[in-house]
């Protein structure tokens, strides 16, 4: 899917950047556009800060479950006890270690957010491409169907599905993904429409390249950066939405730790041990801000703002 390709290439790009001068290659093959865009984006301090934050939060959430001690489900002291040498961030409503629960409660939100954004952006991009191909019934049908989904506020859409099927994690992911589809579809359709009109697409059409190959081989490569920006944006929203749904109790079920539900659980003890609420809030905020910084950097790089400051400097 587009998103994974993008993410993987970002890593490849920075690696190639470090290696390139050492290898005297006869004919360098130019890296794909996403890599070029990512490299240019990484020249901005903002992107670097964003990347630092995201690496920190993701590292925290991924390594966390393995180092969390005492175990996040065990009682470690009196409820809402304040920070101490044993429980650095104190304990929560049931007397469990806030730090342990913080360490163990992030990966689900993160994973669900990424999956939801991937599915949502992937499906949305595919529908947007299809709609952009030709004005007519198919375009109208796709776009109007998407409008229907768009008319639901995201939380209501999630709650609606959950109240019908029950609080299942996969359902939350699906609901969030579904909500991403119309927005992505619209964005992709509009950028694809512009590429669609260009001569090289007409050329491919005239010599008889199959439609799906024109979409995949001619149009998609020319809009990858816009799709990448959309993915970053959607990722932030995913995480926020899933945290909100968890806060309402539709996410990971207790006693399993979860950043969203932690906020709800510990709200009553806010004045006694604020860490139970502030901890997860900070983590979610950091993640969101970090991803936004990166997305913003990529967007600037796509538009070409970075290039201009290069010329001046």
């Amino acid at each position, binding site marked *: 899917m587009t998103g994974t390709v993008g993410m993987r290439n970002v890593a490849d790009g920075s690696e190639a950047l470090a290696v390139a001068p050492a290898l005297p290659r006869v004919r360098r093959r130019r890296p794909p556009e996403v890599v070029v865009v990512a490299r240019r984006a990484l020249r901005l301090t903002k992107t670097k800060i964003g990347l630092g934050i995201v690496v920190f939060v993701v590292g925290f959430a991924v390594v966390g479950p393995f180092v969390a001690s005492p175990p996040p489900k065990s009682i470690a002291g009196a409820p809402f006890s304040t920070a101490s040498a044993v429980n650095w961030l104190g304990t929560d409503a049931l007397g469990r270690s806030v730090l342990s629960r913080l360490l163990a409660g992030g990966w689900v939100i993160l994973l669900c957010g990424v999956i939801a954004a991937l599915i949502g952006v992937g499906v949305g991009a595919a529908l947007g491409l299809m709609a952009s191909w030709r004005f007519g019934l198919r375009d109208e049908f796709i776009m109007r169907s998407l409008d229907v989904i768009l008319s639901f506020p995201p939380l209501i859409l999630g709650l609606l599905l959950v109240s019908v099927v029950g609080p299942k994690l996969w359902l939350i992911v699906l609901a969030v993904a579904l909500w991403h589809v119309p927005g992505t579809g619209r964005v992709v359709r509009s950028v694809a429409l512009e590429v669609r009109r260009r*001569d090289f697409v*007409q*050329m491919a059409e*005239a*010599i*008889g*390249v199959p439609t799906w190959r024109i979409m995949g081989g001619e149009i998609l*490569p*020319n809009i990858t950066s816009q799709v990448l920006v959309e993915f970053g944006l959607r990722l932030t929203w995913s995480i926020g939405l899933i945290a909100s749904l968890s806060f309402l109790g539709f996410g990971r079920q207790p006693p399993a730790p979860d950043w969203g539900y932690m906020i709800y659980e510990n709200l009553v003890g806010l004045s006694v041990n604020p860490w139970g609420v502030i901890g997860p809030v900070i983590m979610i905020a950091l993640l969101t801000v970090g991803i936004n910084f990166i997305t913003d950097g990529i967007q600037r790089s796509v538009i070409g703002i970075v290039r201009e400051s290069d010329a*001046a400097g």
Partner: protein
Amino acid sequence: MQLASPSPDIAKGGTSHANLEVSGLRVDLGASGRDIVAEISLTVQAGQALGLVGESGSGKTTVALALLGFARPGARIVDGQVLVAGRDLLTMSPPELRELRGSRVSYVPQDPVSALNPSLRIGEQILEVLEEHDYGGSHAARRERMDAVLSDVKLPGNRAFLRRFPHQLSGGQQQRVGLAMAFACVPKVIVMDEPTTGLDVTTQAHILETVRQLGREYAASTVYVSHDLAVVSEIADHVAVMYAGRIIDMGRAADVLGAPEHPYTLALRQALPELKTRRVVNGIPGVPPLPGHRPAGCGFASRCRFAASECRSEMPPLAELRPGRFVRCVRVNAVRQSDVEPAQLDEPSLRPPSQPGAILALRNVRAGFGDTEILHDINLDLMPGKCLALVGESGSGKTTLAKTIAGMHAERTGSIVFRGAELEADSRKRPVETRRLIQYIFQNPFASLSPRRTIGSIIAQPLKLLTDLSRAELDEHVSRSLERVSLRPELVARYPDELSGGERQRVAIARALAVEPELLLCDEVTSALDVSVQALVLKMLRELQRELGLSLLFTTHNLPVVATIADEVIVLQDGYAVEHGPVSQVLHAPTHPYTRALIADSPHLVVTDEVAAGGGETGGVPHP
């Protein structure tokens, strides 16, 4: 300033004075110390026009903007003087500059569509300029001034017209509004950046006439930036030719263009197709050096056939050969002695046609979009190995016709027969063999090559789809195709944005030729290119046509180009074929009034100058 300001004007009496004096102007790429343009010195007298000529990347637009004290983002004016009526623009404060721009110095941009605010009515648009500079002191005076300037640019001044929006005007009218705004505050200096480039020849001829007249009446100094030698020769009293950021040739227009003494000017002249002479156009191989990558010596040396060793080591000075004539070349004598007369175009030696009769025959073809019919009842026959030119202005339907034949425009009726068989309207329904034999080349090589594909992959695409070559044969075919259009086979791994416009168009041609077609549809293939590159492409197409026995359908709005490539011409007007015949007959003895108008309005190189008749130096000038 230690730099003597060379004045291209031969002072005639004491009446004329310079409104614009530029000396030692230099614009750098940021703070890099690399110049975009440098050593720009010129003077324009009141009521006169200087043509600033150059190809893309020569720095002419950078100079034009610097005359307004403006540099594009990333560029910086670092040195020099721009005196407008005696005041130096470059030392002014931003508020002073703002006051000056639009009133004393004004600018007419290339594209009136993007220059006019689409949500302001024409009247408001023009009044805004006057109000900004508080012209006349009262509203009534400004209204009066607006009426006057509108009549000067030959636009109606009535209420209905003033209430229109820009999109409700024709391209020519829009550009006249641009002129009205530029002349509104009676400026001393007017900078025009290719104001007629997007217009049809007839409209262009009228606008040029107005520009010429206004410049005289307002006694303004006009700087007319253009890539088109013919247009400049019609409008300018003096010409400055730019190359690689330097003025390399400057003097009276008839002098510079009529008897070129700089190798580049000479080469440009020989690259310029002319309407009345069927001669070979010679392009200039190679590409101009970019800012920051310019050689130590003369920027043109690597492409110059007169270049000697000293040209490469040291930048020649802009030397004054005689009063008012400046040339930046140390090989002037060699240039003077060279053979200026170009070779005549030889008739293509016909290969025996693969089959008798026309390769392509159209009968009663009509095409359009929905209810609008764009092409009416078109009939034509294209003989094998011949080149048929479809000539017309924008909106004449020439591109629609080419696309209809290519099967990219399927809404048509009538019959199109190719090699004896009726063609399907939609190319996707045509057999593979037919799709292979008919190839189409687009006008704009910047849009017709996918920016995300390598050159190799671009050329291989039709090969993979339309032929059954093996992998190895494919690679060989691709590199052979590149060689055929004089491009290095190493380019296969490059991307289009690493290539110049001319190279890209050659890639597009290579892609079309790779599958060995019999009919090549060329849609304005040279209109996005510089003349020097256009000449290369035209010559190459002509040679390939002979070599491969190709049949060519060549659409263009440019009549001189027709003279250099086509055997037969069809003139299209509003979708009707109004004239049809061999090139020599149509261009020399047109019968239809529309063709006559087109020929009359086509800009052509004017190399005589009544005022300069006593000059004597212009002897031996080939007349067009």
